[in-house]
C-alpha cells in the first residue's frame, strides 16, 4: 500500500519535472523562431556586401567607379556625422533626409487622401465608375516622368513641383486599388448596411470603406514605393536639395562613394516607410490577417 502510493507519487513527480522544461521551451519557441527568421533576413545582404568587397579587392572594377564597402561606409559616416564646417557633404545627411522626407510625406499624403476619397465612391457607384474609371486608366499609362516639363511650367523649380510629381505617381496605385477593393467588397455587408438603415456617406464610411481596407493597403504600399522613386526624379531634375540632389551632385564630381551611400540611404528610407505602413496595417487589419490563409490555426 505504502509502496504503491510512493510509486504513484514518484510517477506524478516525474511527470511534473518532465513537463517543466517542455513548457519553458514552448514559451521560448516563438521568440527563437522569430530570431531565426530575423537572422535569415540579414544573410543575403551580408553575402552581397562580401561579394562586392571581394570583387573590388580582386580589382575587377577600378576603385574610382566602384569603391569598396568600407570606403562607402566611411563616406556614409562623414555624410551623417562629419563637421559641416569642412564643406562638401559632411554632416548634411539629416538635412537631405528631412528635405526629401518632407516632400514625400506631403505628396504621398495628398495622394492618399485624394486616392481614397475618389476611389471609394467611384468603386461603389456604377454611374461614377463609368464616368471616372476610363479617365483614370487613360492617365495612368503616362509615365510620371513625362509630366516633368508641365510640372516645371506650372510649379517651377522646388518644393511644389516635387510634391506634385510624388502625389501624381502614388495617386494611381492608391486609387486603382481602392476602386477594386470597393468593387470586391462582400455584397452581403452592403445589404446589412442598408438593412441597418445606412445610406449614402454613412454606408460608405461604416461598411464599404472598412471592407475595402485590405485592398487599399496594397495600394498604399505600392504608392509609397513609387513616392521614393519619384522624389529622386524630381530632385535630380528640378530641386537643389534632398537625397536625390546629393546623389546627382556627387555623380557630377565623380564621388561614387557618396553616390552609393545615397543609394543605400534611399533603400533604407523606402524599407523603413514600408515597415511603418505594415505596422499600421497589422493593427488596423488584424481581423483580415486572422481570417486569411496566413493565420495561425
Amino acid at each position, binding site marked *: 500500500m505504502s509502496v504503491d502510493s510512493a510509486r504513484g507519487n514518484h510517477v506524478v513527480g516525474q511527470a511534473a519535472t518532465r513537463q517543466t522544461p517542455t513548457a519553458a521551451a514552448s514559451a521560448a519557441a516563438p521568440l527563437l523562431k522569430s530570431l531565426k527568421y530575423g537572422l535569415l533576413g540579414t544573410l543575403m545582404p551580408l553575402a552581397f556586401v562580401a561579394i562586392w568587397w571581394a570583387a573590388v579587392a580582386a580589382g575587377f572594377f577600378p576603385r574610382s567607379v566602384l569603391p569598396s564597402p568600407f570606403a562607402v561606409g566611411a563616406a556614409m559616416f562623414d555624410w551623417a556625422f562629419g563637421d559641416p564646417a569642412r564643406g562638401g557633404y559632411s554632416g548634411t545627411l539629416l538635412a537631405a533626409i528631412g528635405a526629401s522626407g518632407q516632400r514625400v510625406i506631403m505628396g504621398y499624403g495628398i495622394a492618399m487622401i485624394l486616392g481614397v476619397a475618389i476611389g471609394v465612391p467611384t468603386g461603389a457607384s456604377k454611374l461614377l465608375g463609368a464616368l471616372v474609371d476610363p479617365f483614370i486608366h487613360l492617365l495612368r499609362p503616362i509615365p510620371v516622368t513625362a509630366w516633368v516639363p508641365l510640372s516645371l511650367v506650372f510649379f517651377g523649380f522646388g518644393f511644389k513641383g516635387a510634391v506634385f510629381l510624388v502625389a501624381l505617381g502614388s495617386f494611381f496605385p492608391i486609387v486603382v486599388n481602392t476602386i477594386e477593393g470597393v468593387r470586391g467588397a462582400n455584397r452581403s455587408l452592403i*445589404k446589412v448596411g*442598408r438593412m441597418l*438603415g445606412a445610406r449614402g456617406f454613412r454606408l460608405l464610411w461604416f461598411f464599404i470603406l472598412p471592407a475595402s481596407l485590405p485592398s487599399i493597403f496594397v495600394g498604399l504600399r505600392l504608392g509609397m514605393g513609387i513616392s521614393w522613386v519619384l522624389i529622386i526624379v524630381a530632385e535630380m531634375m528640378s530641386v537643389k536639395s534632398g537625397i536625390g540632389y546629393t546623389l546627382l551632385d556627387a555623380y557630377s564630381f565623380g564621388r561614387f562613394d557618396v553616390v552609393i551611400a545615397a543609394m543605400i540611404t534611399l533603400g533604407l528610407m523606402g524599407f523603413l516607410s514600408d515597415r511603418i505602413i505594415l505596422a499600421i496595417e497589422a493593427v488596423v487589419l488584424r*481581423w483580415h490577417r486572422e481570417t486569411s490563409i496566413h493565420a495561425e490555426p
Partner: protein
Amino acid sequence: MQNPDVIVSCEGLDRTFVTKDAGENKVLQDINLQIRKGEFVVLIGPSGCGKSTLLNIIAGFDQPTSGLAAIAGEQIEGPGPDKAMVFQDYALLPWLNARENVEIGLRMKGVASAERTQQAMHVLGLVGLSEAAERPVYRLSGGMQQRVSIARALALKPKVLLMDEPFGALDAFQRAIMHKELVRIWRATGATIVFVTHSLEEAVFLGERVVAMTPKAVGLTGELIIDMPRPRDPLSPEFAALKRKLYEMLTAHLPADVDLFAD
C-alpha cells in the same frame, strides 16, 4: 379596412425574373399572405419555390413585378431596420467585436453611445452571449456568430424579424440548440418572425403556422397550423405525424420534374 394586428401583408404578389438564357421565370405568382403581430410563420418549400424571393421582397431587398407588399399597412420602399434580416452567412462585420456588431445598427438610428452599449448588452444577454461581448466575431463558433446576428436584428426592435435559412451552415447538434434558443427568444420578446427553411423538422419544431410553397405554382401551396404544445419533442409520434402531413402537402402539388430532395 386593414386589420391593425396584421404586420406583413402581401396581396396578389408576382415576381418574374427575366434572364437572357432562361427567358421568363415566374418565381412568384399571385401570392397572398398575411402575418399577424407576434406570429411565428415558417415558409417551407424546395429550392426554386420562391420562398427566399418572398422574404427578400418583405425585407425590401427586392421589388415585386406586380402586387402589393406592406409592413404595418405601409408599402415596402426598401430595406430598413423595421424589417430586420438574419442572414444564412451571418454577415457580421469582421472588423468589429460582438458588442460593436450589435451596436452599429443602433448607431445608424442615432442612439447615443452609452444607451447603445446598454441596449446591446441587453440583447446579447437575451441570446446568451454576455460573456463573449468583447470578443472578435471571427473567433466565435458558427452558432455564436448566428446568435450575434440575431442580437443585432433584435436590437433594432423590428416590426418583423426575417430569417433566411439561418441555421443551414450549422451541424445538427448546434442546430437543435439554436431551435430551442430561438423559441425561447421568440417567447421572451414577442417578436413577429418569418422563417425560411427547406427542413420539415425545422418547420414543425419552430412554426405556429407553416406556409408551404412549390415551384411554378400559382399562389401558396398550403398552410398547416402547428398547435402542438411546446416544448415539442421531435421524436414523438405527433411530431412525426405533422411532418408527414407537411410532406404530403408539399409533394401532392409538386410538378413531376421537381425533386424535393435535390438540394
